[in-house]
Every structure is written in structure tokens, then in C-alpha cells.
């Protein structure tokens, strides 16, 4: 499909700037969205490889790695040195959180979809949008480059707790890597803050005529609420990051207590509190985990409704639930700190708020089930990923209840039970939803269809293997198997857990390896996939009325909105879908249930 005269006019205007302005520093939200998509998918591979280093050590502790060992760890005889193990756990999490999940949801999908779904020709401030992508690159260079500085990349955990992360003497490798980490994360934060302001403004100000707030798809509501979370929470992390840099470089003592020593060397600064970092960090990082799932939930709602061919069950409760999750998300951060030394009275209050945050998530799960009830389900690849999100989120959400219970958390804190929980919500949940979203919106992005049969193979293999890797982590954690420990097996308590870890590691290697199916399908379809029309899925959303791919300016007509995006199976029309822009028939009676 080619763009028409309106889009062509925009194209002329934009292309006048030459290659750099059109493709590198593009102001078109769709190009920026794809820039985010390609960058984050590459980092997804890197983060996955870092995880395989962890899995290698846990399966074959201190064994030299074949092939890679000579390239990467030749000084240690091919084995992973203990400080490099802590570097692996730190950087795996850092890459996945800051360079994959957050930017792929907000930067890639938020950017690409928001103007298209609301009927706008671009974002409110396209220049700010372009800057929000390019501000990621200093972070990519700093954090990627930190592997190659003296001492290597950061090793204090992605949580970067002082004094370990502040005292250069506390870890032999904690030299510039940690400082680069802090500055890099600050750049990511600035990028996100820029994006979030743009998204909120665009959604509030630039909706097409007839597109009321309660006719917006859940993807947009989710992106909107997520943008609010980013805007309110990030400044705290940014400030904390700058304070930690100051402690490291300028002799301040925000996070160092009086009389502190490390490696038998006394520290000059003091008068601060290590726990202050934890409060500031988690005040952002707890809302961050909702930033990392709400957009996925929104996209899942859209995909489920489309392929069940019936309306989303409980649209307004779904909107209120997302808002509830976000609001409550600001008052639960202390649940990461139950055994930190925080006043135990706060343990009581945070426990109650944390218990309650399970409620809106439960409501959403029931509404997703209600969306499937009575439908005519088409098992396309995106639908399979969306349904699996519901199944996997049930596990991730329920496991959270254990750690919300403070006495139980005394035991499972810092064990693999926690690792199981967040991998279920972030990988089995969000990442699966992201795959589904890629298969679903790929035709809109690239004008071609991905291969659905290979998509199903990719889904099946991924679904089975991820459960083999992450589900056993629950029982490992039950036994107290600690996190971030390079060799847990020399403790009596964990001595018998090696075989299970080996099974999990083999599955992890297979899981990462099989993603080649997706990579080939993704790139191959761009050149050889069948061309897609405007609306290959017969979906209702406004984005499916634009050409595939849309030209600059998006729509070749002025969209007017008559209804919400979930009127599938409506008795008002013969087809089983009813686009938002389709005018109602002359004699239409209100027949909603």
C-alpha cells in the first residue's frame, strides 16, 4: 500500500532534510518507534546471553566455559570469576530493565501506536520525541562500554545498594563501571521523562473528533497511566543517582554512615544512611515494575478482544484497575525492605498496602477470562501469546502474595522465590505480551505479514521452555536457595539442588537458542512476507484504518470516531467487527448488554 497525496505531501516535506533528518534524526513517531524497537531487540539478545552466563555458573560451578571461556575469561582459565558472576547478575538485570522492557513498551510501542490509535498525525512535540530516543545512546555507550573499563561493569546488583556500590574500596571491580552505570541510568531516566510528557500531552490534546477518553483502547489508557508513573517516579531515581555519584566522586556522605570502613580502610565521609538509598531507589523502582507491565496488559486486552471476536469484558473496571494499580504502586515500596533494617512498624503498613495491590490485578484477570467466555477464538500467533500472558500472569501475581506476607518474606527474601516471581511477571508475562504485540502490529509497521506457522512454533517452544526454566525457581526458593550467590552448593542446606539447576540451565540455553526462529521470521518477513492490507486482522482499532505502513501524517482521511474499539460481534452490522470510524447504520437501536 502506498501513502496517498496527503501523506505524500508530508513525505516531500520531511525527506527534504536528507538521509540524516529522515531516517536517523527522524521526527516521525513511527520511525522513532522502530528505532526503539530495533535497539531494544538487540539488547534483549545481549541481556539473554548475560543470563546464560549466570545459568552456566549455577549448572557447572567453576567449570571453564567451552569456546567462550577462552575469549571472555582466559585469565581465569575459562571459568567465571566470582566478581564476574556478580557483574553478570548486575548487568543482566540492568540491561533487561532499562534497555529492553521499559523502552520497548513505552519507546517502541508507545511511540508507534499512540498517534495512530487516537487519530493524531504525530506526537505533540516531535522534536522532544526524537531526543528521547537519542538520549538512550549515551546510556548505551556508557553502560555497554563499562564492560571494557578497568574493573569491568557495575557489580553491586541492579539495585546498587550502598555502601557496596559507593565505596570504591568495597569491591575490587567497583571503579568507573559503577559510576558509568549511574550516569547511564540517569540518561535513560531523562529519555523516559521526555517521552512520558509527550505521551500524556498527545493523548489529552490530540484525539480525533469523537474519540472520548472512554472510547480509547486499553493500550492507550495503559500508556497514559504508565506515562504518569514515569513522570512522578523518575525524578526521585534521578536525584538518588546523582547523590550516589556525588558520594562516589565528590566526597559527600548521603549514603555512608559515620565511622564506615571497607577493606580495613576508613572512609572520610559519613553522617548518612545506607537505607536512604533504598527508600529513594524503591520509591521509583516499585512504580517501575508497573511501568513494565501495564502497557503489556493494555496490549493484551486489545489482542484478546480482537481474536475472541467479542467486546472486552468490563472496559471501565479495566480502566479503573489500571489506575488503581498505578496509584497503589506508589505506597508499597517498603515491601522490598522488610528485612533491611527499616522500622518494622513500617513493615506492617507496607504489608497491608501490598496485599491490597493484588486486588486490581485479580480484577483484570477475571475480566480477561470474561473476554474469552462466549467468544469465537481465532488461534493466531498474537492470540496465543496474549492468552499465555493471562496464564503466566496468574502465576506471577499469586506468587507475589507470599512475599507480601512479611513473616514469610523473612524467609524467602533474597531467595529464588523472588527471582521466580519477577521472571514470571516480566518474562512469562510482559515479554510474551511483547512478542504477541510484535506479531500483531508487524503488518502495520512493515506492510507485510509475519509467517503465522513459524510464529506458532516459536510460541510453543518458548512457552514450554520458559516454564521449565522459571517454574522450578519457586521450589528452589522454598528451600532458601539464595540469589546472587556464585556457588550455593557448598552449603549443606542447598547441596542437593545442583541437578535441578542443571535441568533449568539446559532449558535456558535451548530457550535462548530457539529464539532464532523469531529472528529469522522477523527479518525475513520484512523482505519476503506477503504484503498486508490496511486491516489484515479485521480489527476495530483506528490504527487499522491507516495504510500499512502509514505515511507521514498517518491518515489519508480525517478520522471521526463513533464508538469504542471493542464492538466485535455487534448485532448492528453483518460483519463480526465494527471499526471505530464506521458510521452507524441509518436505523440503529442501542443493543449493548
Amino acid at each position, binding site marked *: 500500500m502506498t501513502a496517498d497525496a496527503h501523506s505524500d505531501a508530508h513525505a516531500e516535506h520531511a525527506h527534504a532534510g536528507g538521509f540524516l533528518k529522515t531516517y536517523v534524526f527522524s521526527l516521525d513517531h513511527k520511525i522513532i518507534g522502530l528505532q526503539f524497537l530495533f535497539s531494544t531487540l538487540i539488547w534483549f539478545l545481549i541481556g539473554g546471553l548475560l543470563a546464560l552466563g549466570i545459568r552456566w555458573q549455577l549448572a557447572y560451578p567453576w567449570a571453564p566455559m567451552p569456546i567462550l571461556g577462552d575469549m571472555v575469561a582466559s585469565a581465569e582459565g575459562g571459568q567465571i*570469576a566470582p566478581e564476574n558472576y556478580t557483574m553478570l547478575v548486575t548487568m543482566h538485570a540492568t540491561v533487561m530493565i532499562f534497555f529492553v522492557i521499559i523502552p520497548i513498551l513505552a519507546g517502541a510501542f508507545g511511540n508507534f501506536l499512540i498517534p495512530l490509535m487516537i487519530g493524531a498525525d504525530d506526537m505533540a512535540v516531535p522534536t522532544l520525541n526524537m531526543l528521547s530516543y537519542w538520549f538512550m545512546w549515551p546510556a548505551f555507550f556508557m553502560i555497554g562500554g563499562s564492560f571494557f573499563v578497568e574493573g569491568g561493569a557495575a557489580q553491586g546488583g541492579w539495585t546498587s545498594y550502598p555502601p557496596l556500590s559507593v565505596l570504591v574500596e568495597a569491591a575490587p571491580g567497583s571503579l568507573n563501571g559503577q559510576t558509568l552505570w549511574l550516569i547511564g541510568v540517569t540518561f535513560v531516566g531523562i529519555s523516559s521523562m521526555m517521552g512520558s510528557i509527550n505521551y500524556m500531552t498527545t493523548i489529552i490534546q490530540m484525539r480525533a473528533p469523537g474519540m472520548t477518553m472512554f472510547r480509547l483502547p486499553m493500550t492507550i489508557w495503559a500508556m497514559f497511566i504508565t506515562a504518569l508513573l514515569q513522570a512522578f517516579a523518575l525524578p526521585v531515581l534521578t536525584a538518588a543517582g546523582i547523590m550516589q555519584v556525588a558520594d562516589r566522586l565528590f566526597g559527600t556522605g548521603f549514603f555512608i554512615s559515620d565511622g564506615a570502613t571497607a577493606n580495613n580502610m576508613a572512609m572520610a565521609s559519613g553522617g548518612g*544512611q545506607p537505607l536512604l538509598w533504598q527508600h529513594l531507589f524503591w520509591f521509583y523502582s516499585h512504580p517501575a515494575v508497573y511501568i513494565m507491565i501495564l502497557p503489556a496488559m493494555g496490549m493484551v486486552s486489545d489482542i484478546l478482544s480482537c481474536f475472541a471476536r467479542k467486546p472486552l469484558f468490563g472496559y471501565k473496571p479495566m480502566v479503573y484497575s489500571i489506575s488503581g494499580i498505578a496509584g497503589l504502586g506508589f505506597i508499597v515500596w517498603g515491601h522490598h525492605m522488610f528485612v533491611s533494617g527499616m522500622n518494622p512498624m513500617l513493615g506492617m503498613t507496607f504489608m497491608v498496602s501490598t496485599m491490597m495491590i493484588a486486588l486490581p490485578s485479580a*480484577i483484570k484477570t477475571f475480566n480477561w477470562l470474561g473476554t474469552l467466555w462466549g*467468544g469465537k*477464538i481465532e488461534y493466531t500467533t498474537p492470540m496465543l501469546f496474549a*492468552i499465555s500472558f493471562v496464564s503466566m500472569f496468574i502465576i506471577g501475581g499469586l506468587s507475589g502474595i507470599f512475599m507480601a506476607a512479611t513473616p514469610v518474606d523473612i524467609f524467602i527474601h533474597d531467595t529464588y522465590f523472588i527471582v521466580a516471581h519477577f521472571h514470571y511477571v516480566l518474562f512469562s508475562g510482559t515479554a510474551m505480551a511483547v512478542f504477541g504485540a510484535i506479531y500483531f502490529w508487524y503488518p502495520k509497521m512493515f506492510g507485510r505479514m509475519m509467517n503465522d506457522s513459524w510464529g506458532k512454533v516459536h510460541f*510453543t517452544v518458548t512457552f514450554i521452555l520458559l516454564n521449565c526454566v522459571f517454574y522450578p525457581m519457586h521450589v528452589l526458593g522454598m528451600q532458601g536457595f539464595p540469589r546472587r550467590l556464585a556457588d550455593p552448593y*557448598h*552449603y549443606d542446606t542447598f547441596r542437593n539442588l545442583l541437578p535441578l539447576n542443571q535441568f533449568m540451565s539446559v532449558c535456558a540455553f535451548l530457550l535462548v537458542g530457539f529464539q532464532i526462529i523469531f529472528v529469522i521470521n522477523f527479518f525475513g518477513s520484512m523482505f519476503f512476507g506477503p504484503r498486508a492490507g490496511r486491516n489484515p486482522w479485521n480489527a476495530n482499532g483506528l490504527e487499522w484504518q491507516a495504510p500499512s505502513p502509514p505515511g507521514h501524517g498517518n491518515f489519508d482521511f480525517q478520522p471521526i470516531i463513533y464508538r469504542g474499539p471493542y464492538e466485535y460481534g455487534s448485532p448492528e452490522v453483518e460483519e463480526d467487527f465494527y471499526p471505530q470510524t464506521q458510521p452507524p447504520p441509518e436505523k440503529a437501536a442501542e443493543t449493548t448488554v
Partner: protein
Amino acid sequence: MKHFWSFLFLLVPIGGVATFLVAPYFNIWLPQDVSEHGKTIDNLFMFILYLTGAVFIVTQLVLFYFSWKYNRDVNKEAVKFSHGSHALEIVWTILPAITLLFIAIIQMEAWASAKIRPPDIKPTVEVTGRQFNWDFRYPGPDNELYTEDDLVRTDGKLYLPYDETVLLTINSADVLHSFFLPNLRIKQDVVPGMEQSMWFKSKEKGEFDIVCAELCGWGHYKMKGRVYFLDRAAYDDKLEEMRLEKNTMRVVLPEEDE
């Protein structure tokens, strides 16, 4: 076959429950608990496991059933054109809310007794975490901690009396560590500059692991200790033996562990 996908989703509740049923046969389960308060924690854990297990099974079976019955290749009826149900929303908001509040309230006493209300006894031992060892400070012959005749041991071996409540003061010499006794369901981060207390009672004699549970640097994995619960007489003898060693000026090194 057209029901392949629903059966794939059915594997989730089957595999999920099976894992928890099979694990104990491989000795993968909550470790042995010898503490007095640990029973409460384990009971709370199992209660939540059964409750979430039931919710897990029901919701996953519903997901399986809907994915099987409403498969478009099988379901020839018209779509149920419904936008929701107020009644259902109320029910599935109120019931989970009550359940969650119930769980919140029943556990408050356990938390308070474990973390908020210390026993009114003298400190038994001071524990100091440092990179990468657990140091212990025992009372000297005057049987009072924090006097000049105290003895400090750096071999990572903690001796305590069993069947008596003990009070530990815990601290860190450098970075954050966490004092974790898996077999007593005890864990608390140790923070430099912040002296804290922990208290517990072991109901049995024996020796158990001390694990560091907060990333503290490259040696985090080997910051291992052992706790020995002895009867009162043996404990007093052990203290006496350590005091004699101190007076003969022998340096005790942490055991090298492979």
C-alpha cells in the same frame, strides 16, 4: 488437532501442581526448621500455598475450558455480545478484598513477635558481618557483653545454647550483609552504623548453616558460617574453652573451604 492449544494451556495447572507434589520426594522443600517461631512462618507459607494453589487451579481450568469450548473451529453459536457484568465485578472485587485483608490481619502477630517485641534479656552474642566473614563477640568471664574481657572469634562458628531464647546484637563492619539462618527462619540485613537486635530460640541441638543473604561483593558466595546449638552445660564449657584459647594468644583463622 483443533484442541491442541487448549491442551497446551492445560499443561500449566498440571505441571504447576505436579512440581509441588513431586519436589518433596527429591528433598526439595522448606528446609528443616528447629526454631520456636518457625512453625508459625511455615504454617503461614503453607496456608498461602493452599489458598493460591486453589485459585491457581480454578483460574487455569477456567482458562483451559474457555479456550477449548469457545475455539471458533468448534463453537458454532453466535458470540455472546456482552460488555461486562456489574454484579460479577462486585463479587470478584469484594471476595478477593476480604480474603487479602484476612491474610493481612492474621499474620500481624507473627511479625510483631519476630521483629517488633524483643525479649527483655541480656544480649547473648554480638554478630558482625564483614567482607567476607561472620565475626562473633562472646562475653568474657564476667558473662557480660560489651565489657573489656569479651572475646572475639573470627572462625565463622557461632555457639549458642539451645532451648533458651537468645538475643543477638547484629552489625556490619563495612557494607550491607544479611544474617540468614535457613533452619531457624531467621533473616535480617546488617547495616553499618545501625545496631539491630534479633532473637530466637532453637528447640533442638545441632549445627546449621549461616548464609549471607545480601550481595556484599565478590566473596558473597563464600561468606559462610555455622551455628552450633549446644545444651547449657556444653555451651558454658565451650565459652570456657574459647576464653582459655584467647588467653594463650592463639590466632584462629576462618576455615578454608573448597
